[in-house]
């Protein structure tokens, strides 16, 4: 029973982190229609931001704020250097998607250079980043559980207020709905797209900054998580921003709690296959509810 509660808490932490990552993917899909593969790098920049802060003696949780800014800027560079010029040339979604993949590989290289620099120059182990030993506990809960779920709730509320209560949010919604009409009515579409890239990058950066408190990470962690991120986003529903946390929690809990429960029922061997959960979920979603779980809720 205690094990099950621990697994559930761990599942909630993972789900919160996954939701933050998926939120950015859905936001970008809604504004630009581009499946962003560079999201993996945005997460990894978050990881190394909190790790660097920890190395410098600061509280790694400060990395959530700095990670938001760093990954947001990394996303903005992608937008202005690659995507916006391509968009102006009316490149296809496929070309834009390939551009995000190319940028991801480039950023993967840069993070590896940074990790190597830390390792060779300062003899600091930078390939297995794990900060859980530095975490705090409160009423028996790990700090990362409290912070990740609280941040998810706060950031969702802030995103809701931004989109529904501010003029900038109204412009963002207009761009999501009909970019040509938005532009025709005085909205600077390019600026709004830049904002959505910054926000999406920032959200991934926050999740990345928290990841070393939860699991062992390295420069390839983003690549490992990109599939679950996309699966959570599609499972929730790409057409609805708030579908992402729903997808994140369903997928996150299925990967952790469901697999753990199944291991007790049919044997531990099933744990080896937990990585298949996102893919199986994705296939089922695409066949039976291609518009995501949120579309079922909205129909009611």
């Amino acid at each position: 029973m205690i094990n099950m509660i621990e697994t559930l808490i761990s599942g909630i932490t993972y789900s919160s982190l996954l939701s933050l990552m998926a939120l950015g993917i859905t936001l970008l899909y809604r504004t630009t229609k581009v499946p962003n593969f560079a999201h993996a790098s945005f997460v990894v920049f978050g990881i190394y931001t909190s790790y660097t802060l920890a190395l410098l003696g600061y509280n790694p949780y400060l990395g959530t704020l700095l990670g938001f800014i760093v990954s947001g800027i990394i996303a903005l560079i992608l937008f202005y250097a690659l995507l916006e010029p391509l968009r102006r040339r009316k490149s296809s979604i496929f070309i834009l998607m390939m551009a995000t993949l190319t940028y991801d590989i480039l950023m993967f290289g840069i993070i590896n250079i940074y990790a190597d620099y830390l390792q060779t120059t300062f003899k600091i182990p930078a390939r297995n980043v794990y900060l859980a030993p530095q975490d705090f506990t409160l009423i028996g809960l790990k700090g990362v559980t409290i912070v990740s779920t609280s941040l998810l709730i706060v950031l969702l509320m802030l995103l809701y207020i931004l989109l529904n209560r501010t003029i900038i949010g109204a412009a963002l919604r207009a761009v999501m709905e009909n970019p040509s009409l938005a532009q025709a009515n005085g909205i600077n579409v390019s600026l709004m797209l830049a904002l959505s890239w910054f926000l999406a990058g920032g959200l991934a950066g926050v999740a990345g900054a928290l990841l070393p408190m939860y699991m062992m990470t390295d420069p390839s962690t983003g690549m490992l998580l990109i599939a679950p991120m996309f699966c959570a986003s599609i499972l929730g529903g790409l057409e609805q921003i708030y579908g992402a946390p729903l997808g994140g929690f369903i997928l996150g809990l299925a990967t952790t709690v469901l697999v753990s429960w199944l291991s007790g029922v049919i044997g531990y061997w099933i744990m080896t296959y937990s990585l298949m959960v996102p893919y199986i979920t994705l296939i089922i979603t695409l066949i039976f509810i291609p518009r995501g779980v949120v579309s079922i809720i909205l129909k009611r």
Partner: protein
Amino acid sequence: MLVIEKLNSGYGKLHVLYDVSLTAKRKEITAVLGPNGAGKTTLLNSIFGLADIYSGSIELDDERLNKMPPHMISRRGVSYVFQLMNIFPNLTVEENLRLVARFSGMNHKDIENSLKEIYDLFPILKERRRQVAGTLSGGERQMLAISIGLIKRPRLLLLDEPTAGLAVRYVDMLIEKILEMKKTMDMIILLVEQNVHKALKIADKVYVLVSGRIIFEGTPSELVNKEDIAKMYLGVG
């Protein structure tokens, strides 16, 4: 006044308009007629910064619009009602209107007054104000699209085939409304319309565009008298 002089424009290497000159005045409806593929929509796109301008000038009240991006042209008081994709389908009717009004820099009082004017012009939209725009009928959508163009009280309203694909009762009603707009609102209306008979009824001035060139400029009655043009290109006369 809108003054276009010797405009050459198109899309990349596709040259569509050749030496097009046109003037349109306030409180008047200027209709641009012509067969399919003549370049009518490209003319509107050129005014609104959505096409490439190779040479010539476009001036609104002596201010040059050439080379301005569409959002800046919009802020200069130009509204463009597209033929298709001209509403925000997942927002309610009133959200559509308020959103555009807010971005035109209007204050709260002006927005409320402008909304009242719109609802007076199209009472059905007031009834439907809380309805999601994507669920409106074709005619109601077009009324909303025109209202989106009107809400910020533009100096120049560009209408691209507002009656295309509508049921007859909506066509007559919309044409009447455009006439009412001309009388009550101080703006230039540039109307591109396939329905030649209807356009000739309400226009003060008519241009006929064929293969990217203006081949006629005059009043509707002068056009009807030019039997060769009216019959060959417009099917009237």
